[in-house]
C-alpha cells in the first residue's frame, strides 16, 4: 500500500474545503434567520458582522467593502471570487484538488464534486440575491452531504479514506470553535440573568449554525440554556459537530494510520492529549477558567495538529 504525500495532501484539503463550504452555508443560514426577526427579538444587522467574523473573513471583507450590508455579505460569502473562503471558492478549490487526484477518488465522489462545481457555475453567472439565499444554501449543504455520503459509501477503508476524513474533522473542529469564539459572550452566565426573547434567539441561532437545534432538545430535554449550548458544542461526543466528537474521530483515523503504517508520531500524541483534555473537564470548569480562553487555546491546538499531520505525512 503506497500513498503519495501529494495525493494525501490533496485529499485532506479537498475534504477541508468541502466542509468549509458547508460551514459557511450554515453560518449564512443562521445570520439570515436572525436578521429577519423583528428587532425586539434580536433582529440586528450586527448579525451580518458576526457572520463575517465567524467565517474568519473580517480582514478580507474590510479590504473589499466599506459597509456591511446584507447583500454585500451574502455576495462575499457565497460567490465572491476574491474571498478564499466563499462557498464558490471552496467548491472550486475542492474540485481542483479532486481533479488532480482522479485516481484516488471513486467515480461517485468525483461526480458529487464535479456536479456541485457545475451547479455552482450557474449560481456564479446568476448571482445570489437575498431572496435566492435559502435555495442557494440548500444547494451548498447538499453538495457537502453528497460528497461526504459518497466518500463514506464508496471509498476503500485505506489511508486515502482516513486522510479525507481527517481533513473533514479538522476543519469541522475549527469551524465549531470559531462559532464559539465569536459568540462566547452571549453564552456567559451573567448574560443568562438578562434572559428574555433576545437571548433565546441568539442561542438558538448558534445551535442552528451547527444544525443542532433538534439534537439539543433530544439530549437535554430542557429549554435552551447557554451553558448547555456550550456543553453540547464542546463536550458532547454524541453531537457530531462538537469538539469532543471531532477529536474522537480524529483520534480514530490517526490510530488507523499508525496501525497500518506501523509507527506513530507527533500528530497521534497531540490529538490524544486534546481528546483527553476534553474528556477530563466539565462545562463548569471551562466557564470558571474562562470560556474565551478555552476556545482560543483549542483553536491554537487544532492548528498545531494540522501542521503536525502535514509534517508527518503530507510533505
Amino acid at each position, binding site marked *: 500500500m*503506497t*500513498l503519495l*504525500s*501529494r495525493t494525501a495532501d490533496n485529499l485532506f484539503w479537498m475534504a477541508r474545503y468541502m466542509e468549509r463550504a458547508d460551514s459557511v452555508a450554515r453560518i449564512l443560514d443562521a445570520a439570515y434567520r436572525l436578521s429577519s426577526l423583528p428587532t425586539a427579538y434580536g433582529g440586528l444587522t450586527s448579525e451580518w458582522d458576526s457572520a463575517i467574523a465567524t467565517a474568519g473573513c473580517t480582514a478580507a471583507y474590510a479590504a473589499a467593502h466599506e459597509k456591511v450590508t446584507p447583500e454585500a455579505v451574502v455576495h462575499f460569502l457565497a460567490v465572491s471570487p476574491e474571498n478564499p473562503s466563499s462557498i464558490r471558492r471552496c467548491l472550486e478549490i475542492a474540485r481542483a484538488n479532486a481533479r488532480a487526484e*482522479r*485516481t484516488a477518488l471513486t467515480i461517485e465522489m468525483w*461526480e458529487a464534486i464535479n456536479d456541485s462545481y457545475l451547479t455552482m457555475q450557474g449560481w456564479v453567472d446568476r448571482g445570489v440575491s437575498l431572496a435566492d439565499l435559502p435555495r442557494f444554501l440548500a444547494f451548498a449543504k447538499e453538495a457537502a452531504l453528497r460528497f461526504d455520503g459518497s466518500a463514506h459509501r464508496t471509498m476503500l477503508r485505506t489511508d486515502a479514506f482516513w486522510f479525507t476524513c481527517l481533513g473533514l474533522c479538522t476543519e469541522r473542529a475549527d469551524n465549531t470553535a470559531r462559532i464559539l469564539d465569536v459568540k462566547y459572550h452571549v453564552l456567559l452566565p451573567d448574560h443568562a440573568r438578562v434572559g428574555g426573547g433576545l437571548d433565546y434567539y441568539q442561542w438558538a441561532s448558534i445551535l442552528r449554525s451547527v444544525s443542532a437545534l433538534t439534537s439539543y432538545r433530544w439530549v437535554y430535554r430542557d429549554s435552551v440554556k447557554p451553558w448547555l449550548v456550550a456543553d453540547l458544542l464542546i463536550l458532547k461526543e454524541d453531537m457530531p459537530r462538537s469538539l469532543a466528537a471531532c477529536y474522537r474521530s480524529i483520534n480514530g483515523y490517526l490510530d488507523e*494510520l499508525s496501525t497500518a*503504517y506501523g509507527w506513530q508520531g507527533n500528530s497521534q500524541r497531540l490529538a490524544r492529549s486534546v481528546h483527553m483534555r476534553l474528556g477530563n473537564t466539565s462545562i463548569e470548569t471551562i466557564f470558571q477558567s474562562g470560556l474565551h480562553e478555552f476556545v482560543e487555546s483549542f483553536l491554537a491546538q487544532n492548528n498545531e495538529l494540522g501542521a503536525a499531520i502535514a509534517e508527518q505525512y503530507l510533505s
Partner: protein
Amino acid sequence: MTPRAFDEMGGFGEGCRPCYAALKRWLDEAPAELLDQRRKEAELLFRRIGITFAVYGEQAAQERLIPFDIIPRVIAGNEWRKLSHGLEQRVKALNALLKDVYGHREIVRAGVVPEELILCNPYFRPEMAQLRLAGDIYVAIAGIDVVRVDADTFYVLEDNARTPSGVSYMLENREAMIRLFPELFSRQSIAPVDGYPDELLATLHSIAPRRGEESCVVLLTPGPYNSAYYEHSFLADKLGVELVEGRDLFVRDETVFMRTTQGPKRVDVIYSRIDDDFLDPLAFRPDSVLGVPGLMLAYRAGNVSLANAVGTGVADDKAIYSYMPEIVRFYLGEEPILQNVPTWRCREPEALAYVLDHLGDLVVKEVNGSGGYGMLVGPAADAATRRLFAEKLKRRPDNFIAQPTLALSTCPTFVGSGIAPRHVDLRPFVLTGADKVRIVPGGLTRVALVEGSLVVNSSQGGGTKDTWILGE
C-alpha cells in the same frame, strides 16, 4: 489523381470479404433506427466517461470528446499474424538501431545511415552514449502507424518511439462495444484486448534494474493540464501503479525515491510520459518544473529504468524512417516483412530532381515536423503554392522527404446519411520487455469522418473505431 481505394469490407468491388461476413449480415439485418439508437447510447456513454475522466484544463477542452464510430473495423486472424510478425521485426530493428546509435555506430561505419542524420538530430542525446540499459531495451512501448492499400499490403507510415499515446482509446472503445453490441461478440471469436495493462506491467517489471526483488513502477505525468492526462490517469489506474508528477520524486545517492505518507519509497521503473527535454532540469532544460533534478544521474548509475529510454526520438524521425528497410536488413539479416511507404530523400540529388518534377503528385514533409505542419500535399495545392514550396525545398533539401499520395483503405462507417466508406489507419502497440515482445491483438483505428478525407487526426475531424482481430 488518387487511385481507387481498397475497401476492407468490399475489397475492390468483388463483394464481401470473408472476415466481414458476420458483421455485414448483422448490419443488413439491423434496422436503421437500432443503429441510430446505439450510436446515441455510445455518445452518452462516452460523454459520461468524459465527465468522469476527460477533464483537461479548461472548459472548452473538457467538452472535446473524440468521435467514436460504432461500426468496428475487422481484420482477419491470418492478416494480423503477418502484421504482428512485421511489427515485432520492426521494433526489434528500432531497438538494435538505438543501441548502436548510442554505442559503436556500426551502422554509420558500414555506410548504411549517414552520420549527420544521427548527430544532428534534435532528439539525439549525447548523455546516452555508452550507457547499457537493462535488456538493451530502448523502446519498450512503440506505437507503429500502419495503413493498408490492398488485401496484402500494409505500409508503415510512422514509427512512434517516444511517448506513443492512444492506447486508452483502444481499451475504452472495446469496453463500449461490448456494452452496446453484446450480440455481435457471441457471433464470432474476437481476440480480447483487455490484457494490455497486464502485458504492459510485465514489460515494465522486466526492465527493472534490481533483480529478484519486488520492483516499484510509477507512471510519470506532466500533470492534469497535459492534454493526455486522461490517458495517464486511466493507465495508472489499470496498472495499479502510482501516477506521479516530477515533484513527487527526488533523487538521493543516485537513487530515485517518491514521497509517500510512509516516507521515501524507492522507485525502480519510470513509465515516463514527459518529453526528454523536461525530464531533468539539471541535465536538460533548466527551466523545467515538470522534471526531477538529478534523475539522469540515477539513470546513468543504473539505479532506475525509464520507459521509453531517453533519446529514442532519433528513431522516430522521418529521415531515419526512410532507411528502415536497410536498418532491418543490417541488424537482423532479414527481409523486412512490413514495407515503408516509398520515400524520396530530398537530400539525395537524384531524389530531389524527381520530387521537383513530380510535386503535383507527391506529399512533401519536413523531416522533424509532425501534426501536418510544414507539409505540402501536391495534388491539393495550386501552382503558386507548389512554386513557393519548390523554392523552400531547394534551399534546404535535407530538411524534406517526399512520398506518393496513398489510397488508404476504407471501412464502413456510420455517417449522417447512413453507412459509407471512410479512410482509416491503424496504430497497434508493441511492448518490448527484457524477456519477450508482447503485442495485444488490436490497436487504435483512426477514421477520417469527412468524405474523401485522408486526414485521420482527431484535431481535424478524425474519429476512432474499435478494431477486431478475428480468431483463425
